């Protein structure tokens, strides 16, 4: 029963994606919608992502300072650990988990609401490929904007680590900067962008799927919104693990 249900949803998801990435009726309309989505997803998420990133960096710095206290590990390692842990894992994963909550639930509710109010039927009857018009701009916008948000989150996290450790006397300014500049590996940046692209794709398409096929009333719409977040989070964590295995 469970497997057949999974296969049913997976098949329907694949079919929706195939329809979603077919030729647009009019490029200018899709372009305009993509810009609108970039604004909603990107600018609309700046504050929450920035705020979380500051604390991620700050907490990482404080925690590692506590762990390394009394050990022979040099203190500047804290800067190095903050940099790498945020770039490799915390910035892409935590940011995208948060975005799954903020953007994913919003997407599912928006498309689900359109389904319930017969907006999607109205577009279908006009001849619009609704899967394409409603899904493609969101996915493209997310693929552009979320890696930028993640990169910004990584940068802010490193600043957060600085703010939590230098002014409080955990280490000197020079030590933190030395740590941040030590043992840098470019492939970590590649991994961050790979993760953010994959996570962006997961959170938008899963949320679109949940909204697009919603049936019933407000309770079902609420469930679809919740499912969008829950399934996106699970798949993001699963993808995180797989990418970690493949790229390290």
């Amino acid at each position, binding site marked *: 029963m469970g497997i057949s249900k999974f296969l049913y949803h997976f098949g329907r998801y694949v079919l929706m994606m195939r329809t979603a990435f077919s030729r647009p*009726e*009019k490029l200018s309309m899709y372009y305009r919608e993509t810009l609108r989505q970039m604004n909603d997803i990107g600018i609309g998420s700046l504050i929450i992502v920035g705020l979380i990133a500051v604390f991620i960096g700050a907490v990482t710095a404080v925690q590692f300072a506590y762990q390394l206290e009394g050990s022979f590990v040099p203190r500047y390692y804290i800067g190095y650990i903050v940099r790498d842990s945020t770039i490799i894992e915390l910035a892409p994963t935590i940011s995208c988990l948060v975005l799954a909550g903020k953007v994913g639930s919003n997407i599912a509710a928006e498309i689900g609401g359109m389904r319930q*109010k*017969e907006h999607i039927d*109205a577009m*279908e*009857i*006009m*001849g619009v490929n609704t899967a394409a018009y409603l899904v493609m701009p969101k996915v493209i916008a997310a693929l552009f904007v979320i890696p930028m948000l993640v990169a910004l989150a990584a940068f802010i996290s490193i600043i957060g680590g600085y703010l939590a450790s230098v002014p409080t006397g955990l280490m000197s300014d020079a030590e933190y900067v030395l740590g941040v500049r030590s043992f840098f590996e470019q492939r970590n940046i590649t991994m961050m962008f790979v993760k953010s692209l994959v996570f962006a794709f997961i959170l938008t398409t899963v949320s679109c799927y949940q909204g697009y096929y919603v049936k019933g009333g407000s309770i079902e719409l609420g469930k679809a919104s919740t499912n969008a977040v829950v399934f996106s989070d699970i798949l993001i964590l699963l993808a995180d693990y797989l990418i970690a295995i493949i790229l390290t």
Partner: protein
Amino acid sequence: MIRTENVFKSFGEAEILKGISTEFYSGQTNLIIGRSGAGKTVLLKLLVGLLSPTSGKIWYNDVDFCNLNKRDLRAIRMKVGMLFQASALFDSMTVEENIRFPLDMFTNMTKKEKLDRVNYCLERVSLEGVNSKFPSETSGGMQKRVGIARAIVLDPEYLFCDEPNSGLDPKTSIVIDELIRSITEEKQITTVINTHDMNSVMEIGDNIILLHQGEIAWRGNKTEVLESENQILRNFIFASPFLQRLRDTALEK
């Protein structure tokens, strides 16, 4: 003209439509009437392609509507306009943007041409000057008229209306009925209306089919309604003793 040929539709075990064969003529207001659960909405959704029949065929003139590829289906849909029960106007767009949406999506008209077309459609439904209002800022009757304006903006050959009078007062219902009838006659389009409204039946019913338990129980026009001895029709149209007395009075005259 639209023709259905022995159309069946089931959802699981439940058989909703049982062999519907009928014709909807151009230049006429074709009404589908029947009690709740009779299958009216399902039939309308089949006609516009939102659902597929379990068996049977639907013809748009000589085109088999159920076996079209995506491109041909889109070409037919460009000729279709639909007014939804709840209007289905896009909340985040103004009245003008709602009406302009099909023009933006499917035409290469200039901004000026689009604006002229939108204003013509608004004028046609007697709603000049509401371009910048949002649907939430307009009344139910106005929303229906904006819905009609959007439905006719691409000059459709087929117009479908799902319960166009639901939630409207009798006076506004008459305005909407008149509007639909005049557009139908003016453009000689095929209009199919799914309705419960008895005033619509008696005023604009050029071609009426009565659905009962998924089958056509009666067909005729507005003048034949009064004289019909079909018990299902009489129970449906003249459901109350008051309406029954009205019918008797009308027949006596």
